[in-house]
């Protein structure tokens, strides 16, 4: 057997290109259906785990899938926002506590998520370094954000401007990083978390500027009836610090400030049912079970996967046939070599063993390659798949 493997190996090594092509083809044939199945299962489990850990989600009436994707995976889908009053309403029912989410803004390419402190224990997020948020203007980074940007407590990062060329647009807000989170291998690793009020400031609903009562004539246009009108020279602050905190304020009624979605955490299953009942006939809002929505998505994925499997198996069969054809042709071309072997004293069985060893080695290499593909999928596939499917949906 050792001699057969040796001769087979030498032959395959000599015919590298042909060997590589056949191995790759076989690896795809062997690995692709398995990888697809594994990918599908991993993604479905991952999506479902995230959804099942979120008992109820309140949002504006519209696409339930978009709402779930934006609230659970922080992918901006342009869902119409609720308001802070909706969060208070959930709290006031006494049936659940509301955790607000404000999404849609970005910071260095990562989603900026405005929320409350309750979000962190709810999602079992623990600190890897630094401390939790204590005031506006601070942020806590998900594990991947910290690793990717090389930032940690004490550093700062800017929010992305909401409008690049609009002079009246919102300018970047400088956030102070106070903590980084431990990895959870989910969407929270790729988010920048802020107090929801910081998110409101970042999107221009609140601002800070120099004290007008102290401002000089170059800034003040008019003082009248206790009111002050200032010009564009007024210094607006682009970061919130202990020193300028008092100069930050919000306009309008806080209860109207936007909230992209509210995670409702019922006190018990009965409370959850009662709460859902209250929103059944609501004309403008929907209170849904993310698990139900993701189940629907998973069924679509499963259907799509079934079709893809048929295609893959068909192609795979063709690949197998091609492989057999190539091997048969190859042996026919080596007929003289086989005759020589026989003349020298090699049995047909031994000759078959030598040829067979080539097939065994190629299949072995294909299996190893398929295993490597599976390993890479296990390492990186879940996040990549989530991003691919969620961004594309």
């Amino acid at each position: 057997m050792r001699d057969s493997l040796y001769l087979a190996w030498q032959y395959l090594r000599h015919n590298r290109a042909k060997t590589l092509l056949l191995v790759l083809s076989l690896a795809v044939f062997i690995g692709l259906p398995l990888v697809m199945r594994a990918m599908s299962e991993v993604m479905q489990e991952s999506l479902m785990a995230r959804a099942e850990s979120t008992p109820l989600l309140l949002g504006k009436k519209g696409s339930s899938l978009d709402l779930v994707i934006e609230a659970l995976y922080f992918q901006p889908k342009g869902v119409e926002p609720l308001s802070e009053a909706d969060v208070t309403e959930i709290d006031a029912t006494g049936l659940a506590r509301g955790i607000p989410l404000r999404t849609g803004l970005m910071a260095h390419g990562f989603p900026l998520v405005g929320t409350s402190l309750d979000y962190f224990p709810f999602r079992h997020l623990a600190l890897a370094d630094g401390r939790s948020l204590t005031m506006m203007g601070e942020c806590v980074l998900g594990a991947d954000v910290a690793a990717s940007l090389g930032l940690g407590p004490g550093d700062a990062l800017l929010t992305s401007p909401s409008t690049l060329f609009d002079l009246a647009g919102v300018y970047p807000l400088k956030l102070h990083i106070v903590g980084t989170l431990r990895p959870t291998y989910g969407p929270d690793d790729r988010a920048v978390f802020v107090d929801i009020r910081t998110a409101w400031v970042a999107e221009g609903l609140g601002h800070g500027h120099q004290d007008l009562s102290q401002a000089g004539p170059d800034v003040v246009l008019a003082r009248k009836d206790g009111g002050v009108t200032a010009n564009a020279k007024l210094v607006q602050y682009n970061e919130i610090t202990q020193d300028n905190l008092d100069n930050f304020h919000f306009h309008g009624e806080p209860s109207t400030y936007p909230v992209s979605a509210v995670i409702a955490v019922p006190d018990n299953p009965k409370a959850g049912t009662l709460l859902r009942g209250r929103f059944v006939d609501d004309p403008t809002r929907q209170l849904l079970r993310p698990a139900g929505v993701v189940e629907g998505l998973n069924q679509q994925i499963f259907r799509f996967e079934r079709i893809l499997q048929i295609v893959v198996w068909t192609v795979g069969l063709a690949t197998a046939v091609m492989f057999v054809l190539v091997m048969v042709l190859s042996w026919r071309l080596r007929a003289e070599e086989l005759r020589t072997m026989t003349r020298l004293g090699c049995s047909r069985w031994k000759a078959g063993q030598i040829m067979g060893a080539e097939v065994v080695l190629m299949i072995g290499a294909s299996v190893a390659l398929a295993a490597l593909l599976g390993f890479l999928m296990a390492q990186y596939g879940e996040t990549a798949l989530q991003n691919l499917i969620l961004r594309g949906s």
Partner: protein
Amino acid sequence: MISLRDVRFGYPRSRFSLRIPELSIPVAARAAAIGPSGSGKTTLLNLVSGIERPQVGEVETAGVRVDRLSVPARRSFRITTIGFVFQDFLLLDYLDVLGNILYPYRLHSDLKLDRAARDRAHELASNLGIAAMLERPPNELSQGERQRVAIARALVTAPKLVLADEPTGNLDPATKQQALDLLFDQCAALSMTLLMVTHDHGLLDRFDHVVDLSTFDAGTT
């Protein structure tokens, strides 16, 4: 070494037939087999080596009645007792020179590729002047060098009999003589019997025995 008596042979589904009433080649002889095309020179080698079995008659090689052996026994006998040198050398491009020399050891479990075998291979390569080429593939060698590799492969198992089927057919005259010198020297040094098929009558005076197959009843009817 070789003895044939009342041998009759014909290929199935072919009109070719060969009759050899008597043929004898002594041990350590240098024998040549000549004859026109289709006279059965290669068939003679096949009968002697056990590749083919006569329908009638006796074939004795190195003291063994090969006509009585089973197919596996003939293979075993062949690989342990006989060395082959082919006209086209039939070297394998995917093995280096050393790999080609040791090739017979890979083909049958009766041969053990041990230290002694490797030493023999290196010694032969040295004797044949190809020691510096052991790690090169055959397609990088000249015709003469390839012939020497083929000779080394035939001799590495220390056979009692070397069968060469027109080994110098593709060589130029100078290389031809050189190759023959090497073959004769090695066979003599290792006390091997040589039976060589050749078309070249100019070489016959270098052989002890000449078997003229045109004197036998052979051909296609």
